[in-house]
């Protein structure tokens, strides 16, 4: 089984993001960038499938500026076999990324694409589903467990109110949820090996994909600061405040 694993370059989850002064986006200059944590879970799952003998080859893909090669290297150090960088400066919306991935699927013919359920920068939660729709493939989103079964996959999904198990026919799309696994740290020997693994560089035009944005961002603003809470002395006072101050009852 051949796997395609997209990895997105995002602002590191430890960074406290700041809105740009002109309100057009968030500050990314001199900010630590990392692989989207859900994609890291995707890479880990792919490597585990390979270690179990289910998968044979793992191709890591990143769409974005040249610096995305860093995230591909991280995926290679975790155990992916080779990388593809779809180089593009500027905004890439989920639909554009899904189209780029569709074009790569046509080129690479993977049996399974494992994406993160969302990226922690724009929280779109869309690329995996869009790719499944464009390809007409089965999809198992919010996966918390993936097992090979009957020539396909048994995927446990985290849905509102519990877990759902579905059987997927291959080829398929899976998107990862937080509890699927705990990604490994790259070991030093594997970081060294990753340097020798190839990364292919392509442009959206090479894949015949128009990535022109279709959405217009009007304004990016900080969420309002939360007011400090209040302590009340009695139930009566609480009810009074809810009724007369908060006006919610």
């Amino acid at each position, binding site marked *: 089984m051949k796997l395609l694993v997209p990895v997105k370059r995002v602002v590191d989850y430890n960074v406290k993001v700041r809105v740009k002064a002109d309100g057009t986006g968030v500050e990314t200059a001199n900010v630590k960038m*990392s692989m989207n944590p859900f994609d890291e879970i995707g890479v880990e799952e792919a490597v585990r499938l390979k270690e179990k003998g289910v998968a044979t080859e793992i191709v890591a893909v990143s769409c974005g500026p040249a610096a995305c090669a*860093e995230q591909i*290297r*991280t995926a290679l*150090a975790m155990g992916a076999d080779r990388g593809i960088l779809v180089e593009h400066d500027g905004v890439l919306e989920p639909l554009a990324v899904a189209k780029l991935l569709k074009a790569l699927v046509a080129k690479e013919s993977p049996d399974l694409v494992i994406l993160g359920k969302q990226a922690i920068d724009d929280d779109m939660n869309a690329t995996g589903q869009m790719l499944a729709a464009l390809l007409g493939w089965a999809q198992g989103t919010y996966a918390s467990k993936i097992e090979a079964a009957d020539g396909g996959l048994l995927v446990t999904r985290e849905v509102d109110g519990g877990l759902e198990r579905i059987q997927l026919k291959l080829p398929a799309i899976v998107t990862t949820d937080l509890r699927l696994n705990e990604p490994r*740290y*790259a*070991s*030093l*020997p*594997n*970081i*060294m090996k990753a*340097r020798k693994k190839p990364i292919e560089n392509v442009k959206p035009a090479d894949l015949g994909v128009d990535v022109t944005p279709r959405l217009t961002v009007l304004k990016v603003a900080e969420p309002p600061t939360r007011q400090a809470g209040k302590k009340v002395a009695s139930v009566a006072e609480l009810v009074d405040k809810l009724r007369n101050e908060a006006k919610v009852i």
Partner: protein
Amino acid sequence: MGFSRTAEQQEIREQTLRICADFGDDYWLRKDREGTFPEEFFRAMADGGWLGVAMPQEYGGAGLGITEASVMMQAVAESGACMSGASAIHMNIFGLNPVVVFGTEAQKRRMLPPLIAGADKACFGVTEPNVGLNTTELKTRAERVGDRYVVNGQKMWISTAQVATKILLLARTTPLDQVRKKTDGLSLFYTTLDRSKVEIRLIEKMGRHAVDSNMLFFDGLEIPEEDRIGEEGKGFRYILHGMNPERILIAAEAVGIGRAALAKASNYAKERIVFGRPIGQNQGIQHPLARCWAHLEAADLMTFKAAELYDQGQECGAEANAAKYLAGEAGFTAAETAVMTHGGMGYAQEYHVERYLRESLIPRIAPVSRELILSHIAERVLGLAKSY
């Protein structure tokens, strides 16, 4: 000279910091209080293959330079692990360089892989109680008896001896009054630390309680000839060879401590409100912190300049010494400033900077003191008369 790190060095830093993130300040404070070796941290670094960063690839290492090893050790210290973390793995990183350079093929095959894998822990036995920094006068005697040596004498300050399985030992094989040059007559051994022949007594010390330092009393320790590194009588020269890289690593670690302290202090200065505003809004608080940053970054530049020279096979004695000196002072001053910035809380263990301060004194004292560094620079760089 490049001022920025390569992508690979950056990745080494990031990945080291990730491992260290699992061993936060509370872990190190607990280890410091208990005085127990940070075995979990040691294992995590060994299992990730990090101990072999600067060891040759043929023996299981990554074959990288002192620059990369410094990047990694700095990240360890900077994570808040300070010397508790750095000293726990320091010997595995570069301690066996004399074996790499002067050992036989058979010795390398036997000695390096277990150290890189973390199966062996080694300690480094040079300092003696009655000799001090005047290393050529070492007294611990290794007397040749047939195909082995028998060791008697004392060593002082030997770190990790409580947990070590091996010792890299510098001892006298020819009495001082029988050598031609005073740098002759010492030999280097890498051998099993046989506790039935070596008494190891813990030294109660100021900080870094997780990593022990000890007095060693040798009472007839037998060392087979095949554990001698290089030629008999040339040990001092072999040790000298590894001194510059050791100073560079210690310098990188000291900068790491300083950065950890500065980060804590800056955060506290932003959040602590006194007289109606954050204390960090006062220049009396800001300026010392900004000065610390400037000194730390300058020391860091000297450290990586020395590392680059070493990795290029160039002479780096003055730079390595200067880096250790500058970084030791900058790390200490940053730790002290961090304590003072915290006011009373700087003295409380839960804010961790008091531990940083205690540990920041080590790179000032060991492996060579400030005074001897300055004497060395005065003599070798400035051409002044030797004073010691």
